[in-house]
């Protein structure tokens, strides 16, 4: 770096909302994460791409505090939180995730009680956060379902009776019910047909624009990442091989693996 470049401070002085440093995780002989660091600024969408087994879902589970690493730290720039969220106990983690972190899984069975009503699924998140008044639960659930562009005349239907796209909207409503600081999306459109996929992506994009919601999106679908992400992180065998602005990573990939990945897209 030149002397002149050193003298130039960063223009954006805001702190990243989320930062993880040097995360490592092994499952026996398998290295799932190897010294992974990243950050996400408020209002930004970080896309994580990579082949199966690259470590992207492990990383997302850690962001949702469902797993702990062998080494490394994870911080959210929110009041009253420790510098490393892995220091929280199980109850504190559950409360933090219920109140400040939303997640949408690829498989709705993972995120929803399939035989409870859709509005009940959303209200469950509010109950965990301490809300007990029925009319408030009902109204907030309705508001979250509406924001997720779920047809309100079906709000009392259980997810088991809904299409895949509708089930994803219920998951999304549940995830955003408490206006989380961070929304995690784990392959949210995989398995949906193309037209439903486009509708779900539109809803996500609208939420992101209207609420400046910070998102981390994991997908192996480069089209989905390209549509949604501001920045992209490319993972392979537990390591970050490339990271950059989405258009730069797609138009001028530097790493041999990223070039292979981008050029393999139909």
């Amino acid at each position, binding site marked *: *770096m*030149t002397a*002149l*470049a050193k003298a*130039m*401070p*960063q*223009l*954006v002085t805001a702190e990243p909302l989320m930062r993880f440093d040097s995360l490592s995780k092994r499952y026996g002989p398998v290295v799932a994460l190897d010294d992974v660091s990243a950050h996400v*600024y408020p209002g*930004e969408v970080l896309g994580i791409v990579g082949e199966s087994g690259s470590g992207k879902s492990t990383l997302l589970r850690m962001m949702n505090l469902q797993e702990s690493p062998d080494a490394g730290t994870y911080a959210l720039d929110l009041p009253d939180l420790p510098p490393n969220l892995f220091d929280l106990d199980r109850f504190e983690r559950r409360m933090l995730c219920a109140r400040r972190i939303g997640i949408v899984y690829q498989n709705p069975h993972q995120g929803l009680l399939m035989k409870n009503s859709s509005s009940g699924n959303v209200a469950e998140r509010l109950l965990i956060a301490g809300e007990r008044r029925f009319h408030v639960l009902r109204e907030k659930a309705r508001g979250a379902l509406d924001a997720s562009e779920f047809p309100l005349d079906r709000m009392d239907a259980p997810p088991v009776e809904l299409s895949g796209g509708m089930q994803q909207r219920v998951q999304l409503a549940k995830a955003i019910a408490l206006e989380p600081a961070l929304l995690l999306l784990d392959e949210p459109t995989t398995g949906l047909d193309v037209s439903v996929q*486009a*509708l779900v*992506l*539109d809803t996500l*994009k609208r939420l992101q*624009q209207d609420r400046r919601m910070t998102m981390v999106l994991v997908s192996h679908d480069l089209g989905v990442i390209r*549509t949604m992400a*501001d*920045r992209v992180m490319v993972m392979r065998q537990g390591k970050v091989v490339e990271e*950059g*602005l989405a*258009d*730069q990573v797609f*138009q*001028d990939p*530097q790493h*041999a693996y990223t*070039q*292979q990945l981008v*050029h393999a897209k139909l």
Partner: protein
Amino acid sequence: MTPLLTVDDLSKTFRMHHLGQALPAFERLSFTLSAGEFLLLSGPNGAGKSTLLRTLYRSYLPTGGRLIYQSEQGPIDLATAADVDIAHLRRAEIGFVTQFLTARPRVAAEEIVAEPLRLAGTPRETALDAARHWLATFGVKPDLWRAYPTTFSGGEQQKVNLARALIRPRRLLLLDEPTASLDAGARAALVRRLAELKDEGVAMIGVFHHPGDVAALIDREIPLKTKEMADVAE
């Protein structure tokens, strides 16, 4: 007066790992650009004109040199700036006008055009009003404003693209064949708008298939030449 942009010894080489080869696009390029200046990039196909524009926008990473840009908050080297700063400058100060529209499916033309204003915090209805104004300026018929541009002709998409690119005031505009596939009316509207922006002090660097369209605006020209591909060790 300090130039708005100082390009100093800038180089860009594409490394194609699967071929084991490197393709230099341009080497050790230096020039400056001041507020209100209009610079034309010229040269044959493959000379690196669009590559230079994309490198200035940081869609391509430079392989050498510096790009000192005088932002409203102070100087910054676009070649090495953090992604978050580049994203900020793209939202606030530096615009890129291409001939290709990257439209999300099922998003109406007026919403696509309004997006840069909405991202800057403008209320939805105000942003949509401005979007409709610019769509009308570039000759997009009102019955298409609520339609999806993915179904439009190339020329209509280009008009949507121009409206989106010019809806927010910028300090530096990068123009990559913005008049390609436009009809005469839209081309004239664009040239009028570029002239207004130049008068307002917006600096512009552009590639034009027919430079005659903007002949009256051009202050300087940078000719670029085609380079040869070279083998590299992996």
